[in-house]
């Protein structure tokens, strides 16, 4: 189901899928149940067929058994009369349609001491009844099973099927019944030959299903229903079973020849079959084999029809379901279109009308509310955006003004850098040279943004105003403090360091109002933080008296003044750059920059110092945005 399908289609397909699953489960259940019923019924039907056919065959063989046994009983009294014997077998054959021949064969020595004597009546190929006397060296019936078994067992016997060559020239079976005197001595054996053709035809004509077949085998497992067309002549059931090399078939056939009654299921290749079997009273065994594909053929057809009906039903259901869902969800589509229109800025878009008082109506009302709210919100947003844009413009102007206030006419011995953290910053630096004296100041206003920038502007203006008027640096800082404190109603303060260097003598007067200490990098020796008296930051108390200090600089001494944007620069892991790294930088990088002023009068030497520190700090913070203004000032007291 693709994502580009409509909701109606997806919902309908989902319903279709669920119903299909239910149908499939139901169909499987029906198929299994009906198959089981069909198989049970077919098994019963096969057993019934087997019973019917076996009853028919038993009727025939029983008729032969009864008439032959009756004849044997009668003949007991007439064995000494050859004419009666002849008449008996002749009339026996003549009166029975089932028989092709009959014989009375005497036990050796019973008939006048003869080794052999028998009287035999048979139908010739034209149907005429003929008589013969059998028994000779070439036909020694004394050792033949049909004579020997009833003689020895004193019981009737059914022979194996055999080809009666020279007689009726067809496959027959012989029923042999002993003729005994009152002492149960067997005197002769009376036989009745029945052709197997009609029994075989009857068995072979039974086809409950297209591929089903019936078999009748003898006591020793030879096929009685053998004929030239079915290729069973001379075959035995077990020989066929062994030839199949199929264990299930061999087992099934073994049960049949064992005389069992029952059923078995066998699989040969891809063909599964049902075999039902039962023995007849004379030792013959009847079996019926039906292939399951035949049994299931009608069921399969029914299942296919059922599946087709289900498929058609599903198709109709899908169409109806799709139409209903589409109609029900049409307001959603319309609301969706309205939402798109609203999104495009058409807040006056008319929402669809909902007549039902259900979730759709609530959805429509929500949409209407959203539409109204969105209108108001957009209107407010426009105003706010305009104000923000205006403020941003003003801030840009302020930034330009602030940056413009910074001195940029660097003398060769000084370089400075300032980078506000926001549009406008609170850091400041300034310098001026008057009467061969360099005045400098670096400060950091507490806070950021516009208030800090204003404070910075005041501080810078005060420094520039009071420097060079002959005040000590302590007095300069005191006046700046007073000017700032008077304008400070918000409680802000400024840390600041200012000083002046006599460019002739190198005497530096400085005053540190709560600011980071200056790093002094003498031409010989280690850099160090310049200690200062603990003056308060300016702007806090307007009457605070600031004290200045003095340091005489050797030629080549470099001073580095900075704000806490450098010393407190931090990585994303909140690790500070710190004074130690700053001092280390001063030893490794700051101190190695040349201590000679550029003879061209540019400040590129000191710019190298500023750039070096800036680069070191930027590498340290690994791209983390600075959260405070950064100011660096480098001053070299040196010769040109």
């Amino acid at each position, binding site marked *: 189901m693709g994502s580009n399908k409509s909701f109606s289609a997806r919902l309908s397909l989902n319903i279709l899928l669920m119903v299909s699953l239910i149908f499939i489960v139901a169909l499987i259940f029906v198929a299994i149940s009906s198959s089981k019923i069909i198989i049970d019924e077919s098994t019963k039907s096969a057993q019934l067929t087997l019973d019917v056919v076996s009853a028919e065959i038993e009727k025939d063989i029983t008729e032969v058994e009864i008439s032959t046994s009756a004849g044997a009983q009668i003949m007991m009294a007439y064995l000494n009369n050859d004419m009666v014997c002849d008449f008996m077998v002749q009339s026996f054959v003549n009166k029975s349609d089932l028989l092709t021949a009959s014989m009375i064969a005497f036990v050796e020595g019973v008939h006048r001491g003869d080794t052999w004597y028998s009287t035999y009546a048979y139908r010739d190929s034209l149907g005429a009844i003929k008589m013969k006397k059998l028994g000779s060296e*070439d036909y020694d019936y004394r050792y033949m099973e049909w004579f020997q078994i009833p003689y020895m067992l004193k019981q009737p*016997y059914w022979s194996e099927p055999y080809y009666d060559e020279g007689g009726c020239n067809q496959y027959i079976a012989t029923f042999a019944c002993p003729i005994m005197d009152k002492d149960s001595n067997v005197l002769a054996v009376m036989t009745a030959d029945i052709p197997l053709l009609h029994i075989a035809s009857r068995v072979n004509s039974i086809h409950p299903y297209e591929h089903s077949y019936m078999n009748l085998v003898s006591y*020793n*497992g030879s096929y009685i229903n053998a004929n030239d067309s079915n290729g069973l002549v001379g075959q035995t059931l*077990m020989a066929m079973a062994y030839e199949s090399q199929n264990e299930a078939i061999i087992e099934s056939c073994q049960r049949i*020849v064992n005389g069992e009654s029952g059923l078995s299921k066998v699989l040969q290749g891809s063909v599964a079959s049902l075999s039902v079997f039962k023995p007849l009273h004379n030792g013959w065994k009847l079996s019926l084999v039906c292939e399951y594909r035949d049994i299931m053929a009608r069921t399969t057809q029914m299942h296919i029809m059922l599946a087709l009906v289900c498929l058609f039903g599903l198709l109709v259901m899908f169409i109806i379901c799709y139409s209903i869902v589409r109609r029900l969800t049409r307001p959603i589509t319309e609301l969706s279109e309205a939402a798109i229109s609203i999104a495009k800025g058409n807040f006056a878009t008319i929402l669809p009308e909902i007549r039902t008082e259900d979730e759709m109506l609530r959805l429509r009302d929500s949409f209407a509310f959203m539409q109204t709210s969105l209108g108001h919100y957009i209107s407010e947003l426009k105003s706010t955006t305009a104000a923000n844009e205006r403020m941003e413009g003003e801030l840009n102007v302020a930034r330009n003004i602030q940056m413009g206030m910074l001195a940029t006419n660097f003398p060769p011995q000084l370089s400075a850098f300032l980078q506000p953290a926001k549009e406008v910053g609170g850091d400041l630096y300034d310098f001026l040279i008057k009467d061969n004296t360099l005045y400098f100041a670096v400060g950091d206003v507490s806070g950021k943004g516009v208030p800090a920038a204003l404070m910075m502007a005041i501080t810078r203006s005060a420094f520039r105003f009071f420097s060079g008027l002959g005040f000590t640096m302590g007095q300069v800082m005191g006046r700046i403090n007073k000017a700032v404190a008077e304008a400070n109603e918000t409680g802000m303060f400024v840390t600041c360091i200012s000083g002046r260097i006599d460019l002739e003598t190198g005497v530096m007067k400085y005053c540190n109002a709560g600011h980071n200490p200056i790093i002094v990098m003498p031409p010989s020796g280690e850099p160090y933080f310049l200690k200062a008296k603990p003056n308060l930051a300016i702007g806090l108390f307007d009457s605070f008296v600031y004290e200045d200090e003095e340091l005489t600089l050797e030629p080549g001494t470099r001073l580095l003044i900075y704000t806490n944007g450098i010393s407190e620069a931090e990585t994303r892991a909140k690790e500070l750059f710190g004074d130690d790294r700053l001092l280390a930088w001063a030893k490794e990088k700051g101190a190695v920059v040349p201590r000679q002023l550029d003879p061209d009068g540019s400040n590129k030497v000191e710019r190298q110092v500023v750039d070096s520190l800036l680069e070191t700090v930027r590498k340290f913070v690994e791209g983390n945005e600075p959260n405070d203004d950064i100011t660096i000032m480098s001053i070299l007291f040196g010769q040109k």
Partner: protein
Amino acid sequence: MNCNLFKFVLLLIAAMVLSQSVWSQKVVFVPQFTAQSQFAGYYVALQKGFYKDEGLDVEIRHIGASSSQNSIDLLVEGKAHFAGAQLMQGIVARSKGVKLVNVLQLSQRSSLCCVAHFPVGDPEKFKGKKIGRWHKGFSEPCLILDKVANLGIQWVDYNSGIGLFTHHAVDASLMTSFSELIALRMSVGEFPDTNIYRFADKGFDVPEDAIFVDETYYKNNKAVVDKFVRATKRGWEYTRQHQDEALDITMAYMKANHVVSNRTMQRMMLEEVLRLQVNKETNKPDYKPYPKERFKNLSGIMVSAGVMPRLFDYEDLMVGGARKQ
């Protein structure tokens, strides 16, 4: 002129008859039983023209299943030139004065079994039992066992088949491993091996199928006997090499003789017959004559068991083709 022409025609006919008799010697061979793959080698020799190649016109004449006569009877009566019979049958007949000679010993092993409805590990189990045997013979080893072990077996003669046994008319029955035993399996399915007493496994492994001729016939027709033996061997060798074709020939032969059977059984029979032709000492089908020493031992036992009336010289029976090998 007409008289000369008549004489010429007579001479021509005489020459043709003479040549026929010289180049195509008519002989009759009687196997010991009805047509089946036990005799496949003979059918193959006939069908493939091996006899004809030797200049013999062989007729294979089977004894009817219902006949009480055996093949040696027909040889004695002069109704056959060659008879297929078991070695011990020939020994018994010679002992009784029938002038037979063994010209080819095909089988090298005994196929005889006594199959019972009960386990038969010990011969004592047969004591006083009713046991079926072929009335035409082939039962000598069991007769010896009966006498030597004084089992008092009640013998029931029968013609053929397994009906007496399967219908429980007898307690046990003699069977051959290549015929009745297979037929039993084809009939009742699996049969317990513990109920089968195999004489070959009990130290009584006497070869069976052989070809016999009348001594006088042998003396007068040595060349014909040699040819028959040579062609017969060739037939069996071909059968061993081409068993399916031999089975086809046998089945066709059986059908022509109205003998009903199935290919499965005939195939199994042929396989067993070919196995029995393999000499267990050389592991080859070498058709060796029965050794003289063993003959002496066997004859002594047979006389003492009353199976044959008197002893005779080994050379009397084994003269001729068999001895030459």
